[in-house]
């Protein structure tokens, strides 16, 4: 269900008028989405759904009771208000309670052309048909997922805050497997609307990565020079960015905590080529103009040429420490460089070209060691050229250490991978040495 700002405000105003609490916050989100899956060249499942969610937070004293419902029915909203107030009255006082914010000044929201409710499955099926045809021409089986939709998010408080954002979203991912089922490739993209996604380009890319009949080279575990494609880079940076919380660092329980107390804010922890920022007005990955608690999203530079420049912090922690509150990022962009993947390959004596990672998970929050595996397009490079597919490997690598020894970056591009905050990510390909692969996998 895609509600307009006026429709949302009308609902929020009705709820706020009815509220008997000291203060009240209404959060709403919703949208329409259609997904279509195909596997081994044939349709499997699909789904179309419209959704809406309203959360009523009633604040009584320094206590907050919260009720969420998926209905806009007046009786249901009235019941939610009453119940949230009842919950609040029963709870203990929260010494970190912060009263809802009043009116805020937000950046101009991104505009999305042609936002459609009830997204049609036909263009998704046509894209799948294109991908299947292109896969057939290259003698590979294809599987994939196409998605298109739109959504909104809004917040209103009894103190006068009102924030509203709407967005379009679309994605296509394709996994191709060769006829012998002995090799695979992947490609994917996301954008604000499905017509902007080039299904043929994605299908060809996945198919050409998969279209190898020679057995993959078996490499021994060890430390290798790697060229990580943007999707892989985005995934590793996500682990780091979402650990850049000021409170955890200042409490001594994050990778940014310093021995003896204090944090590493302001220190150069990473290679000078690394700059990571978020900007709701980014033309490639536009984001919402408001975040947690209705705080405005502003352009933030989290890592500035290798220096830890900004940490996100809650309103409570900001007040306690005398700093500015900054909401966690919705999405992020890693600044790129000017070395192409081809140039990176030519400069590599012995290494691996990695398309993407799979099943990554944090192993050690102190060092940000992340484990995972390569998947769907791993290639062995020797003396400046790709010589063969390389069997997948498990890695254990510290994200901090990796971004501290970057040899080169390529052009940044929007990747399929979605940020923890639900927003888009832009990342470049990255060349680095001494990447730790710890065991072999037979998984294709």
């Amino acid at each position: 269900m895609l509600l307009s700002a006026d429709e949302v405000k009308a609902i929020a105003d009705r709820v706020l008028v009815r509220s008997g609490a000291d203060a009240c916050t209404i959060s709403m989100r919703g949208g329409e989405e259609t997904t279509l899956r195909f596997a081994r060249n044939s349709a499997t499942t699909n789904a179309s759904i419209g959704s809406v969610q309203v959360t009523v937070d009633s604040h009584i004293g320094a206590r907050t009771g919260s009720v969420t419902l998926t209905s806009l029915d007046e009786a249901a909203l009235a019941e939610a208000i009453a119940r949230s107030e009842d919950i609040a009255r029963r709870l203990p006082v929260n010494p970190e309670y912060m009263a809802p914010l009043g009116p805020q000044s937000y950046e101009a929201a991104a505009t999305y052309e042609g936002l459609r409710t009830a997204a049609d499955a036909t263009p998704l099926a046509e894209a799948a048909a294109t991908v299947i045809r292109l896969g057939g021409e290259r003698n590979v089986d294809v599987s994939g997922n196409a998605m298109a939709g739109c959504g909104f998010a809004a917040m209103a408080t009894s103190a006068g805050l009102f924030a509203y954002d709407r967005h379009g979203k679309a994605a296509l991912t394709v996994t191709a497997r060769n006829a012998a089922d002995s090799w695979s490739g992947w490609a994917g993209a996301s954008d604000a609307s499905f017509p902007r996604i080039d299904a043929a380009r994605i299908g060809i890319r996945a198919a050409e990565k998969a279209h190898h009949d020679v057995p993959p080279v078996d490499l021994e575990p060890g430390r290798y020079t790697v060229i990580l494609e943007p999707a892989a880079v985005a995934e590793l940076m996500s682990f780091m960015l979402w650990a850049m919380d000021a409170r955890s660092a200042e409490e001594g329980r994050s990778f940014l905590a310093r021995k003896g107390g204090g944090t590493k804010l302001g220190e150069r922890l990473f290679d000078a080529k690394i700059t990571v920022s978020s900007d709701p007005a980014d033309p490639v990955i536009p984001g919402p103009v408001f975040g947690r608690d209705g705080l405005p999203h502003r352009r933030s530079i989290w890592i500035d040429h290798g220096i830890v420049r900004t940490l996100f912090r809650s309103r409570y922690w900001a007040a306690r420490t005398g700093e500015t509150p900054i909401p966690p990022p919705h999405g992020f962009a890693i600044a790129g460089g000017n070395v192409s993947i081809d140039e990176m390959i030519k400069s590599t004596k012995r290494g691996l070209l990695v398309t993407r990672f799979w099943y990554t998970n944090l192993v050690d929050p102190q060092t940000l060691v992340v484990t995972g595996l390569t998947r769907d397009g791993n290639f062995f490079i020797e003396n400046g050229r790709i010589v063969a597919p390389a069997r997948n490997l498990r890695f254990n690598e510290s994200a901090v250490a990796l971004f501290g020894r970057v040899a080169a970056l390529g052009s940044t591009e929007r990747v399929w991978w979605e940020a923890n905050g639900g927003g888009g990510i832009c990342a470049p390909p990255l060349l680095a040495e001494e990447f730790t692969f710890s065991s072999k996998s037979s998984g294709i």
Partner: protein
Amino acid sequence: MLSRTEQLDLADLAIRLARQMGADYADVRIGRTWTEYLLAREHRLEECNQQSELGLGLRILLKHSWGFAASQRPDRDAVSRCVDRAIDNARAVCPIQARAIVLEEIPVHEAEWIMPLGIDPFSVSADIKAEKLIAINAAALGAGADFCTSSFLFTRDERLFASSRGSRIFQARTRSFPSFEVTAVDRQSGAFASRASLAPARAAGFDYVISCDLVAEAALATEQARQKLRAQSVRPGQYDLVIDPTNLWLTIHETVGHSTELDRVLGWEANFAGTSFVKPEGLNRLRFGSPLMTILADRSQDGGLASVAFDDDGVGCAAAEFPIIENGILRNFQMALGQAGSIGLERSNGCAYAARPTDFPIQRMPNISLKPNPSPCSLNELFAGVDHGLYIVGSGSWSIDQQRDNFQFSGQLFYEIKNGRLGQMLRDVAYQGRTLDFWNAMDGLGDASTYFLGGSFYCGKGEPVQLAPVSHGAVPARFRGATVLNTASQDI
């Protein structure tokens, strides 16, 4: 709130309209899910949210193609829109339906199943729950923790399944998940260590939460977190492992549970979660593990998160128990409707689940458990057979490849085993392995007295991702010659 009569009327309408529009088959799920989540940090309650979600999901089969549409506003207008949209979706995919979806015949049921429940957690006042969470944290802080976070998560599903074949099934179940994590910080060295609770999620009520005695565990966990800070870092290498069921349940989930899902084996999940190293021709042939290894699937285990009478395809499964692995040999795949025929089998064995009524039902795990040793065998007896090894307790980090072969698991607590006896605590441990090698290296198994029912609320699968709760029973087991790495140093 929809009455049962109203739900039945909407289901009848959806199915009638779908058939009128040409659907060869239709089923619908209508229901409500209640969720309550409380989070406490140190001495304060940070969050208390109650959520209610109503939904209707209509699935139709039109000339061998699925079409699905859903709404959170189950009324007659929404039903009509869902029918139109589901039919449109099925028509849209017809041109790319190279492989026909064919549904087997299954028995029709008119039934009701309500999970037996002790104390309904939704009847317990928020202040009582808040008080319990703060008491857990207070116990940890009192024992010397620097930080403690605790939470309760409760869900209740009430759902009607109706199909064009005539099934009308009402089911209801409740689940509870209490948890905490304590953190100890050494400001001088800059190190910090955490220890998470071992109590799993269960299909149970508030009485289960009380029985977990998290206050006592929080104090113990604090002591153990402090010990971790002082513990010796493990030397990487080859070790014999005794794995506690509080850790092993997750290994079972990832290596056995997921690798034997038929849709994955057939390649239907290739784009996201992957495929499997297990092939259809491995049925009754593949030596998955040692003869000690029997893995059973069930829908009836008391407290099992996947215990239910009928799956979300309407297949009766309350009495269904089947071996996935029997004495080390692969015996069965987990199947949902429309899959069995692909490998020459007759019908589904009741493994379909939709996380919400508004989700397309896909194949998901039933409870999947390691059968205990029929002969007496205690934990100490497992230790006794180890000269150089590690004992691993509790779940930590986890990762496995896209065909369920190469895995890596960490844990909460690690102890040296030396010459048959439990020794000092260690830290920075993860064990890596290859699924078949690992399970074939199992040479010790605890008996029924050591059984523990673990599980997770958060098994993810499908696009868009659906979360499924599932339980795994396990006993402690011994595995020879596993690779252990040091997670702090990345030593290979």
